[in-house]
Structures are given as C-alpha cells and as structure tokens.
C-alpha cells in the first residue's frame, strides 16, 4: 500500500539526540584511538628494530683501536705518575752530610736505604769528644727523625771507630 499522505518526520527528544551524538562520538573515538595506537605500535617496532640493528652491529675496528690507544696511554700516564710520586731522591742525604760533618770526623762507609729512609754511616773520629760534638751537630739539625749510635770502639790506628744510623722522615727523600 502506498502512503498517499506523507508521514511527518519523527521528532526525537533532546535527551535522545544527545545520547545518539554521544554514542556515535564514543564509537568513533574508541575506534580512532585503536587505529592510532595500532599505527604508533608499528612505528615503535620499526624504530626498535633499527636501534637494535645498530646496537648489534657492534664496534668498528676503528673504535676498538681508539679505545685500546686511549686506555694504553692512560695506564702509562697513571703508572708514570705513581712511580714518580714514589721515587726517592738521595741527594738531600749527601747535602745533609756535607753541611754537618765535623772536620775531625771521616766517613769511610755510607749507606742510604730508600725503603727504610735511613742513612747508615761508618765513621772514624779522632776522639770521643769529637764524636760527641759530631752527634751534637746531627741532633741540632731538624731533618733527622732519630739518631742511634750502633757501634763504638777504639780504633787500632788510633781514634774511635763508630757506626751511626740516622732515620729521616719520608718527605726528606722526595
């Protein structure tokens, strides 16, 4: 049957229209967000693949050589620097002797030891009084940490034979 009299378009309430718009918008929004996320995920996977490829490519020969060269130089410089800091200079011990030796004392034997920071002297003095003066001269100086007379006897050729140990602080030999 043909409708001769056209029907009036159905009127929807405001709530119904609003609900419809909201439903369509939500549907489009969730579908759109899914599509955007799907695209972004694909892009992330591609970036990750690219970065992984660059990482697994590893180091070039030039980079290995550069690293070896720099590390070798660094080790050498560090070793040199630490050895230099530990190196002892014996000249202050001789300077000390030159400025403190008594005119009537003679040292036929001198030993310097860097590890113990000691100066061991084998000496001859013309008399006990001279040796006493020599000891007083040594003791008057600031440099020695400790002075010890380790041996003392009358010499066969006259005078006094003695042995003396002088302990210096570590910085004395720097």
């Amino acid at each position: 049957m043909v409708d001769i009299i056209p029907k009036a378009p159905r009127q929807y309430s405001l709530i119904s229209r609003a609900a419809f718009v909201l439903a369509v918008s939500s549907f489009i929004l969730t579908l759109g967000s899914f599509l955007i996320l799907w695209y972004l995920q694909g892009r992330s996977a591609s970036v990750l693949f690219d970065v992984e490829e660059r990482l697994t490519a590893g180091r070039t020969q030039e980079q290995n050589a550069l690293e070896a060269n720099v590390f070798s130089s660094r080790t050498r410089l560090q070793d040199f620097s630490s050895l230099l800091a530990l190196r002892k200079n014996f000249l202050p011990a001789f300077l000390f002797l030159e400025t403190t030796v008594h005119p009537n004392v003679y040292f036929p034997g001198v030993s310097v030891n860097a590890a113990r920071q000691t100066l061991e002297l084998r000496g001859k003095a013309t008399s006990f009084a001279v040796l006493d003066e020599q000891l007083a001269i040594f003791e008057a100086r600031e440099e020695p940490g400790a002075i010890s007379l380790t041996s003392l006897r009358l010499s066969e050729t006259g005078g006094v034979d003695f042995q003396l140990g002088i302990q210096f602080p570590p910085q004395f030999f720097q």
Partner: protein
Amino acid sequence: MNRNLLIGILFAGAVSIGTLFSWPAWQDYQIARSQVKDRELELSNRETYFQDLRQASDTLEEYPAELAKVEAAIPDNPKLPSLYDFLQQEAAFSGLSLGSISAVIEQGERTQEVKVIPVTLELVGSYSAMKEFLSRLLVSSRFSSLQSLNIAGSTQPGTFIATVQLHAYSY
C-alpha cells in the same frame, strides 16, 4: 532501526573496542615505547663513550713529545741491552767507571702491569761524580728509582766504590 537500539549498539561497540582492543594496544604501546627508550639510551651512551674517547685521543695528540718521553721512560719491553747502555752512558758522563752490572727480569704473562727490573751496579769514582750520577738519574729519559746506595772507600785515594741498587720499569 529503533534509535534507542542503535544508541545501545554504538555504546556497546565503543566499550568493546575500548576494552578489547584499545586498552591492550595502549599497554603494548607503552611497553614498546619503554623498550625503545632503553635501547636508544644504550645507543646514546655508547655514542657518548666513543665521543669522549675521541676527545681524549685528540687531547693526547696535542702532547706528542710528552707522551714519547713517558713511553721512553717506561718502554713496552725491558730492552735490557739498551738499559745497560743507558746506565753505562750515565755513569761515563758523570765521570764514573762501571765495574759491574746485573739485572733480573721476571718471566711472566705479558700484561698491562708495570714490570719491575731490579738492577745492581758497581761504580768507581769520586764523590762529586757519584752525586752527578744520582742527579742525572733523576732527569734521565729512562725512568728508574734508587733503592739503596752503599759507598765505601777504595784503595785509590779520592775514589770510592759505590754499590747502587735501583729499579727500572717496563711493560
């Protein structure tokens, strides 16, 4: 179609897509992004490391003379003949004669660690020559450090015999 039914279907569809597809996709995307970030950071750290190395290398290249001196001071191998020659030359230039010389090289695995070469020298000469020898050692091209020194009088007046123990170094 009934309008209310359509609204219901659209809402249900939106919720379904959201919970079944969009939310898991969002979580996966977050995981992928964090992985990318981590790997990019790793790559960036590696690039920074080599950039720093290149800078250090450039800085080192600015001091070729100093580096060569350090290399000569602590050579790559003991070079015993050249060490003996060096000590003989230093003694001769100081006015001392070399009585004897001996050194010990520890045999071991070749590493980057410094090897100590203990050397014992017997020198004959004057007191001032011995002092000169000691000062020359302090500024010489081959690095050495004195360990002990014994000086005793010799049969010739004015001359002494010195036994010097020192350490030379190599890799």
